[in-house]
């Protein structure tokens, strides 16, 4: 399919008359404005019974705004919502649940110190007796292939099981429409497969699912219909089973997405630039993960990726490598120099650079301007930012302009506060800030988390280019597509253990999935 014709079609598309007697939800001309930004512009959307309906779009395309209006947490400025043919006003989430609309959030809202049944009881309007509720939870969860033990304490459960709690909580209210926001972003491939079976079954029973995801492979695999948003408008509807992930991506972006390639040219690997030798650390808090004798040699010229499900020690590993968490001296070596006890500034001076997972509050100070946020990581790296203890605002401003230009960081006015940037733009900034140094060793945690396809391709290509120029790049990621796209070698972290890094061409998704699940299966299956 040619992309030119596609984008022309996109804007002039007339919506097909899909609504009929099976229509569950029919949104007509929904409009929502935030200040001078039109988040949703006359959006029409029809969801039929028993349909898994994908909602696609880049970051900021208006997906979240739209589903929040369906779930009653935002009020539309214009347009109508028809529920089974009747116009409705959904004033709040409780009203939405009463209609039969449930939602599973991207970020869980569970109390870690409470048990499964207690968490669910808190969310139900009439929980009834706890013992009866526990029975219902057991039955419903087993029925749908999502087994749960109601007495388990949430803190002890892996993320995949926590998501089950959210889903079961939703199912207990017998919804007719379930909204899911990026449900698979925290799951292993096997856990995701399990979820797809459940969704399939729900659809067969007549329940509709509105499915938001950035993973186009799975959209193609499980969704019946897709609506694509761009800049708050519906630009296209399609049958995803007849599309390819690449064509879906270009519909979202409105242009061709550059594909990234790592494996075409084999890297010339050189000396070890970052060495981890038996890196171990105790868990600092009850909710942290201990690191167990992690070893890895990262060589010049290569990109090594560490796959793993969230919360398996990625954050702790990052902190140990960056120097925010001191360990034994020999455990971390940069260019042959033992530095496990050295601080992050020392390691930066050794030409190492770091990009943490959390952009706001860790990688950047929310209330400070971008130029000030450059000083944050570059104040001691020989960029003439600081002289005699005084910070040069002019130099910081020049660097801000350079990074903005080279990494296409878009902003409403020059040098805004970090908090005002969208997630994708801020990510381009924090990655660009380090790439701008041409570091010898770069460690990135979740380089493209929540970043749209165009920006993700830009960041991934930049990482590969850096490695090919002789640097060593370590990428910690939960996105397998990304990992297979850029990595020369792949290791998997599970419960604080790291598997041996193996060449990417010898790895399969199944094998990565099995390694991810590590020793977790025993606890995962509560039957």
């Amino acid at each position, binding site marked *: 399919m040619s992309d030119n014709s596609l984008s022309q079609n996109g804007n002039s598309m007339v919506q097909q008359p899909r609504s009929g007697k099976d229509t569950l939800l029919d949104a007509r001309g929904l409009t929502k404005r935030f200040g001078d930004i039109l988040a949703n512009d006359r959006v029409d959307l029809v969801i039929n019974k028993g349909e898994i309906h994908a909602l696609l779009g880049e970051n900021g395309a208006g997906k979240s705004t739209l589903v929040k209006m369906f779930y009653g947490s935002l009020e539309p400025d214009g347009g109508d919502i028809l529920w089974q043919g009747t116009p409705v006003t959904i*004033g709040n989430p409780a009203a939405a649940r009463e209609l039969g609309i449930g939602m599973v959030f991207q970020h869980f809202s569970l109390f870690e110190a409470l048990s499964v049944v207690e968490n669910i009881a808190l969310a139900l309007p009439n929980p009834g007796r706890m013992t009866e509720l526990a029975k219902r939870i057991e039955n419903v969860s087993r029925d749908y292939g999502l087994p749960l033990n109601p007495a388990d304490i949430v803190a002890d459960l892996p993320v995949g099981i926590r998501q089950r709690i959210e889903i079961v909580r939703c199912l207990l209210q017998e919804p007719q429409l379930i909204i899911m926001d990026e449900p698979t972003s925290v799951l292993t491939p096997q856990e995701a497969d399990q979820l797809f079976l459940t969704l399939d079954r729900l659809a067969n029973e007549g329940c509709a699912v509105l499915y938001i995801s950035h993973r186009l492979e799975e959209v193609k695999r499980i969704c019946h219909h897709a609506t694509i948003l761009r800049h708050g408008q519906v630009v296209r509807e399609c049958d995803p089973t007849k599309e390819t992930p690449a064509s879906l991506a270009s519909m979202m972006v409105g242009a061709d997405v550059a594909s990234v390639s790592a494996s075409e040219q084999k890297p010339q690997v050189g000396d070890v630039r970052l060495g981890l030798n038996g890196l171990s650390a105790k868990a600092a808090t009850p909710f942290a993960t201990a690191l167990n004798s992690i070893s890895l040699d990262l060589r010049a010229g290569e990109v090594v990726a560490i796959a793993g499900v969230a919360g398996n020690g990625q954050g702790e590993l990052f902190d140990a490598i960056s120097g925010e968490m001191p360990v034994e001296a020999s455990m971390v070596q940069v260019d042959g120099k033992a530095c496990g006890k050295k601080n992050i*500034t020392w390691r930066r001076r050794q030409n190492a650079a770091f990009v943490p997972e959390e952009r706001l509050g860790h990688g950047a100070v929310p209330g400070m301007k971008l130029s000030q946020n450059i000083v*944050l*990581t570059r104040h001691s790296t020989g960029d003439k930012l600081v002289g005699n203890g005084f910070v040069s605002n002019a130099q910081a401003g020049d660097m801000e302009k350079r990074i903005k230009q080279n990494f296409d960081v878009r902003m409403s006015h020059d040098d805004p506060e970090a908090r005002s940037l969208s997630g994708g733009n801020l990510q381009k900034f924090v990655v660009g800030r380090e790439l701008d140094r041409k570091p010898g060793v770069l460690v990135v945690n979740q380089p493209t988390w929540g970043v749209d396809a165009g920006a993700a391709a830009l960041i991934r290509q930049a990482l590969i280019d850096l490695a090919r120029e002789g640097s060593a790049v370590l990428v910690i990621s939960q996105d397998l597509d990304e990992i297979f796209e850029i990595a020369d070698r792949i290791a998997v972290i599970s419960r604080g253990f790291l598997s041996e890094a193996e060449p990417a061409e010898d790895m399969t998704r199944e094998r990565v999935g099995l390694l991810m699940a590590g020793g977790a299966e025993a606890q995962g299956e509560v039957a």
Partner: protein
Amino acid sequence: MRIELVKRKEHSQLMAMLSPLIAVALTALAAGIIFSISGHNPLVALYKFFIEPLTQQWSFEATIDKATPLILIACGLSVCYLSNNWNIGAEGQFVIGALFGSILPVLFPSFENAATLPLMLIFGAIGGALWALVPALLKTRFNTNEILTSLMLVYVASLILDYLVRGPWRDPDGYNFPESRIFSDAATLPEVFGGAMSLSAPITVLIAIILAIVLAKTLKGFEIRVMGESPRAGGFAGFSAKGLTLFSFALAGGLAGLAGTMEVSGALNQLLPSISPGYGFTAIIVAFLGRLNPIGIIIAGFVLALSYIGGEGVQSAMGVTNEIASVIQGLLLFFVLACDTLILYRIRFVSRHGSQGEASHV
């Protein structure tokens, strides 16, 4: 109709300037209501409280005398508060600083030369810093809450002062009054500008200006601001949270101790059982009213100093209790903190009919 707070995308520069002014206006309004409830003409009372002290030379000079320690203490506190270290114990650091500064004139009264005064000031700063380092070390070592420990040490300091002036440091020629001996001329801070103010005032302004430059322009100032707003990002930048806690407490204690020494050496000329009308606590309000900015603090120090002089004024002229000064100070802090909300939020009036419940909650 409903009133909503809507988060701004960035800090509002305009509101950062306006919010202290709005707070002062609201305080005057509330004070006027209090005056009229207690049966006084609110306009006359407000005039006597806020304006009259500025119209006469003696009361204007008295305002400068009161403002000086407030400004100096508040400058140190601003570094603490900017870096998220809640030092509430400046009053105690002021007292201990005054004690250290008084070691020379009280115990070695014959040590009289050009070095006397500079040494006293240095001793005072060291004393205040040491006293402030106690809660700082407890925080960094044992994770104790510095608000509680620094506050409790205020009362310890006051009792030490009380003990010394009634006991070992009592003036041998003082007819058993609880006072130390009067400081010699060499230990007395001179007056400047034809007797209009003590030397402490220009010293304080100089320190405030230096601190303003350090905070705005240097890497240390950057570190202080980063740590206050986002400690995790500060750690990522390579700054040490513990180091900064020790630094900011030592600096705030040092400046409070310096203020204490200048107070006993300049204004009082001896140690008394009580040497401060609550400067260390009022300085907290000064720091926030001045937006934690040393230049703003100079202005805010004047406003709060007025409340001391004005409180005495309304007491003598209208028979209003002197406690009204504390009430107005408290109101001012309340309104300052409330108005700061406007910097990152704007108020929106929403009129809607037939809606129920909290739409913004999920």
